[in-house]
């Protein structure tokens, strides 16, 4: 810049003179800009096209969701307990949530109901409600978190699933406990075995110290406070211990299967 300054003619605008001089030089900068701009345009084209509708985008997203299953399983700490709260923290009223209205919620006859136990277990006998009520029960006051984002604190009482699995001689090296429900579309959900064996995973018979109301899953719900709400099936009628991934009501529609909290 010093050399240029010594060349300046008094009265001539410094900036205009330099600009004119620059124009005379080969415009490598402009050529570079176009090359850079072209690749940016290609990127815009790529993201601007309707990728979300195309088959391969959905495919890729589902593959990543499967990868996320593995990551979540890896970071799942079987000893980490979901935070517990005092009774005063219970959300009142506790929300009803399902893919149907409360009017269409299943009405199960508790006297006729039997819990079917299937798959990789020693004892495949089915259980009546009366028999299940006799098992030792624990209470938890934990946060129910819906995949939608809202949450509510509730009180659930029941038998730890891992105790029941031991009782029926389930193969705890198997991959899943797959639950089926009494609603009209056959709600079902797979539970990975590690989570099934978590101390707070529960076969629930009571809500807030009262027999589970119809709204909250009478006669039995599986409470899993280490997962999102849709992995806590209501109106459960059977369980299959299996190594096969059998899908789930929401999982089949693209919701992440592990869905751990």
């Amino acid at each position, binding site marked *: 810049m010093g*050399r240029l300054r*010594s*060349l300046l*003619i008094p009265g001539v605008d410094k900036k205009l003179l330099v600009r004119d*001089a*620059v124009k*005379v*030089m*080969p415009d*490598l*900068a402009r050529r*570079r*800009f176009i*090359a*850079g*701009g072209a690749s*940016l345009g290609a*990127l815009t084209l790529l*993201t601007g096209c309707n990728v*979300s509708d195309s088959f391969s985008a*959905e495919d*890729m*997203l*589902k593959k*990543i*969701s499967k990868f*996320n299953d593995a990551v979540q399983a890896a*970071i*799942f*700490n079987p000893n*980490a*307990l*979901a*935070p517990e709260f005092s009774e005063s923290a219970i959300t009142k009223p506790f929300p009803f949530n399902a893919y149907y209205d409360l009017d269409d919620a299943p009405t199960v006859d508790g006297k006729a109901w039997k819990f079917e136990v299937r798959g990789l277990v020693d004892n495949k006998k089915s259980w009546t409600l009366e028999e299940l009520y006799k098992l030792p029960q624990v209470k938890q006051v934990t*946060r129910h*978190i*819906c*995949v*939608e*984002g*809202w*949450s509510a604190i509730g009180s659930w009482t029941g038998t730890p699933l891992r105790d029941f699995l031991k009782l029926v001689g389930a193969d705890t090296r198997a991959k899943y406990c797959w639950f089926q429900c009494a609603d009209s579309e056959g709600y079902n959900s797979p539970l990975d075995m590690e989570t099934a064996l978590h101390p707070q995973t529960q076969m629930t018979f009571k809500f807030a110290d009262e027999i589970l109301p119809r709204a909250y899953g009478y006669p039995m719900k599986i409470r899993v*406070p*280490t997962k999102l709400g849709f992995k806590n099936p209501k109106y459960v009628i059977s369980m299959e211990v299996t190594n096969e991934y059998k899908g789930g009501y*929401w999982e089949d*529609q*693209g*919701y*992440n299967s592990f869905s*751990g*909290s």
Partner: protein
Amino acid sequence: MSSLMSSLAASDERAVPTPAKVIQPAWVRTVHWINAVAMILMIMSGWQIYNASPLFGFLKFSKSITLGDWLGGALLWHFAAMWLLMVNGLVYLALGIATGRFRNKLLPITPSGVISDARAALTGHLSHDDLTRYNYVQKLLYAGIIVVGVVIVLSGLSIWKPVQLQWLTALFGGYDVARFVHFFCMAAIVAFLVVHVALAVLVPKSLRAMIIGR
């Protein structure tokens, strides 16, 4: 006089120009644009997720600006793009610290500097002659947005894993509060985006520098 003439004559012969200083190195530009894409995917899918259970009754995002069509789709996008955002973000933070770029470009930030540069900007007197140096407003906003970026990721992790990362969720004041933190960080980022894009358009050579580096 004659020296001036000979100098101009020399330039007529297509002399090779001295290369302009590199304002934005290649790694900065790469990380910047990847982040732009990742951020937009996160924000748009995030808006669709928000719609499933709005934090504010009066606010719902139009489907024309959300990504994912429905909650399930939006979640797939959100938990996919998060990898791009995280990996790219960590590369940016690591290189920014290791190369000394953060220290050189973003510090120091002084209150008096910010006030005087803000005043100059608002009255149209802020110079953009030397793009290799950020003014105080830029330094504040760029450093600030990095902090917001870190907080939005941490708050996101805390609402994704409130049991596995319960210490983090507790740090944010619990699950419900963490949701609001996540939302307000998004709002801050969107506000930054509006200003950032507007100014890049108003000072096009800065946009050019972020594309070709000079």
